[in-house]
C-alpha cells in the first residue's frame, strides 16, 4: 500500500498496464511531450516512445476512430479526452462504431476512453460536464466512475483488460482532493460491482464520483441525530450492480440517490426506476433524487455552489427521508 492521490493512482494503473502489455498505448492531445493536460502521462513518452504515447492532432473523431481501428487489430488503446466534454466531437465513433461492434461482428473491441469530467474546477459549461447517462443508455458500452484512488487504479486496470469499450470517467476535482492508501502493483476492481462504503440501516444513500464524498460527510453529519445512513458507491454505472442496490434498499427500505450530473434523465433516474420496480415491496418512503440543477454547469463558483448538491442539502434530504 502507498499513499496516492486519485490522479497518481490513475497514473500508477496506467503505467503498470503499459509495462505489462506492449499492446497497451495512449493517444490524445498533448499526452506526450506535455504529459497530458493534467499530467497523468508525464514521463510516459520518455519510457514508451512516440508510438505508444501518441500526441494526436486536435481531432477527437480521428483519435477515437484510430483507437477503435487499433483495437480491431488487437491493440489495447486508451484514448484520452482532454476534457470529457469534447467527446461530443467523437460521438458517432463511440456510440455507433465502438458500442455496436461486438454485437454486430462477434469480435471484441478492447478500448478505453479516459474522460476527465465533472465540476468544482471553475471550468464552466464546456469543461465540467457529467455526461455519463448518455453512455449508460448506449448498449455495448461499459461505464465506470470511481470515487476513490484505489478504485481509480483498479477500475482503470479492469477497463484496459476488458474486451469491450469502456468509458472511464475520472473526476477532475478528485484528482488532487482525494488521497488514500492504494495497493501497489497488480490491483483490479471488477467492473459491475458497487461497494458499501458505510454500513447503516436507516436509509440507503446511493451515489458515485465526487458526490459520494459529500454523501459520506453528510452521513457523518446526521449520525449525531441517530441516523445511520448506509452509503453505497456505485463505481460502475454500466452495468449497474443491481444486487447491491436492491440488497441495500431492501434492507433499509429507503433510497436517496445523489449525483452531480443534471437531474432529468440522469443515472439517478435509472437507479430510482430499478428500485421502484424491483424493491417496491420493501419501500418505506419515496425514492428521492438529489442532483444538479437542469442547467449548463456555471463558471462562477457562486453559481456552481448553488448548482451542485451541497453537503447541507444532502444532509437535509437524509433527515427528511429518515423522518418519513
Amino acid at each position, binding site marked *: 500500500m502507498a499513499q496516492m492521490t486519485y490522479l497518481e493512482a490513475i497514473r500508477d494503473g496506467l503505467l503498470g498496464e503499459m509495462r505489462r502489455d506492449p499492446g497497451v498505448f495512449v493517444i490524445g492531445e498533448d499526452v506526450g511531450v506535455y504529459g497530458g493536460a493534467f499530467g497523468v502521462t508525464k514521463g510516459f513518452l520518455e519510457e514508451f516512445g512516440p508510438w505508444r504515447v501518441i500526441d494526436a*492532432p486536435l481531432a*477527437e473523431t*480521428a483519435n477515437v476512430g*484510430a483507437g477503435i481501428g487499433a483495437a480491431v487489430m*488487437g491493440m489495447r488503446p486508451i484514448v484520452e479526452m482532454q476534457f470529457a466534454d469534447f467527446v461530443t466531437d467523437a460521438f458517432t465513433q463511440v456510440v455507433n462504431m465502438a458500442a455496436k461492434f461486438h*454485437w*454486430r461482428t*462477434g*469480435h471484441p473491441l478492447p478500448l478505453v476512453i479516459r474522460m476527465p469530467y465533472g465540476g468544482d474546477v471553475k471550468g464552466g459549461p464546456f469543461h465540467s460536464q457529467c455526461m455519463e447517462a448518455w453512455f449508460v443508455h448506449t448498449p455495448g458500452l461499459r461505464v465506470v466512475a470511481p470515487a476513490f484512488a484505489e478504485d481509480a487504479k483498479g477500475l482503470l486496470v479492469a477497463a484496459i483488460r476488458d474486451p469491450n469499450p469502456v468509458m472511464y470517467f475520472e473526476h477532475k476535482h478528485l484528482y488532487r482532493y482525494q488521497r488514500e492508501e492504494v495497493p501497489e502493483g497488480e490491483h483490479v476492481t471488477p467492473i459491475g460491482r458497487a461497494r458499501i462504503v458505510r454500513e447503516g440501516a436507516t436509509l440507503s444513500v446511493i451515489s458515485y464520483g465526487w458526490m459520494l464524498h459529500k454523501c459520506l460527510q453528510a452521513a457523518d453529519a446526521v449520525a449525531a441525530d441517530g441516523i445511520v445512513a448506509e452509503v453505497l458507491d456505485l463505481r460502475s454505472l454500466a452495468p449497474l450492480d443491481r444486487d447491491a442496490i436492491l440488497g441495500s434498499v431492501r434492507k433499509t427500505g429507503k433510497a436517496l440517490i445523489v449525483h452531480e450530473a443534471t437531474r432529468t434523465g440522469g443515472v439517478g433516474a435509472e437507479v430510482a426506476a430499478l428500485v421502484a420496480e424491483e424493491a417496491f415491496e420493501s419501500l418505506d418512503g419515496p425514492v428521492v433524487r438529489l442532483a444538479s440543477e437542469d442547467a449548463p454547469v456555471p463558471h462562477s463558483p457562486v453559481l456552481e455552489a448553488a448548482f451542485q448538491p451541497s453537503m447541507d442539502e444532502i444532509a437535509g434530504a437524509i433527515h427528511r427521508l429518515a423522518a418519513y
Partner: protein
Amino acid sequence: MAVPETQEGGLVGAIQAASAKGETLAPSDLLEILYHMRLQRAVEDRGVKLYYQGRIPGAYFTGWGHEAIAVGATYALGPQDLLAPMHRDLAAYIMRGIPVRRIFAQFLDREGGLTRGRDGNIHMGSPSLGVLPFISHMAASVPVAAGMALACRQRDEARVVLTFFGDGATSTGAWHEGVNFAAVLRLPLVLVLENNQYAYSTPVSRQTVAQSFVDKAPGYGIPGVAVDGNDVLAVFAAAREAVTRARRGDGPTLIECRTMRVRGHSEADKTFYVPQELLQEWAARDPIALFERRLREEGDLSSEVDRAMLERIAREVEEGLAWAEASPEPAPESVSEGVYAEEREESGRGEAGEDPSWPR
C-alpha cells in the same frame, strides 16, 4: 511531400500514366480480375432479383458500374493487408475471403450472415479476416482504417490498409479527420474515392466546388491522383503505386476514381434527378464490358475460358444462395446475446485466413 507526376497531366494524363503500368500483370491476373468483377455483378444481380421478389428485408444497394474500382484497388493488396470497404464494393469483400454464401445469408438476414441477421445487406465485414464492417454513418470507417494502419505501424508490420468512400463522404468531418490523422502520422493507408457523381440525389457540385477532388490532397500533404474508375487496370495501377508507397513508409495517397452511379442510390430510387444522357453515356462505358472487350481484343479471353468462367460464377451464385436459403432465421432470443464480449474473448490481429467472427 510532392504531388506525383500523374496529377499534373490532369485526368487524362493520369489515366494514361496509370493504365500504362497495368501491363505487367500476367494473363492469369487479368482473368482473375475479370472473374471478380463478374462475380460482383452476378451476386448483386441475383440480389436485385431477390429484392424485387421481396425476399431482402429493407433497402438494397448495388455497386453496379463500380466493379472496376472495387476489384482494381483490392487486387493491389497483399495477403496480409487490410480493407475498410463501403457499400459499392462487394467484390472487395469476396476477394478478401468472405464467402459468397455468407453474403447471400447476410442479404436474407439469416443466421449464416456475417452479422447473424443483425445488420443489413451492406453492413457486413469480418474483422478477423481484416475486413472492417462499415456503419451507415458515411466516412466513419476512415479514421478507423487509419487506426488499423496505426496498429500495423506500431507493431512494425509491413501491412497496408485500403479504404473506400464516396464523393458525399468527403464532405464529412470524419473523412477530414481520418485522412489528416493518417497523413500526419504517415500511416500506411490508401484512400480510394469512388466519385460516382452523386450522393443519393445530391450532385457533386453540392459536395465541393474544388476543380477536382484530387485538389484536396495537397491540403493534407499527401499525393493525389485521378483515374478513370471504369478502367480496372488504371485503378489497379494507381492502387498498386499507392500500396507500394504506403508499405515503404511514405504514408497515404488519395486516389480519385471517376465513375457514375448508373443505378439508383438504392434499388428503391428511380433516379429521376439524373439527366438521361449522363446515364446513357456511362452505361455505354460499363467497366466489365470495357474490360472484356480489351481482353478479347488482346487475346487474353478465349471463348472456352469465358464460358467456363461464366459457368463457374453461375454455379457459385446458385450454391451460395442455396446455402443461404437453408440457413435458418436467427433465433428471436439471440437478439440480446453478445452485446458485450465475454472476459475471455481475445482480439485477433486481423490476420487473413482466420474465420469470420460470427459465428464463433
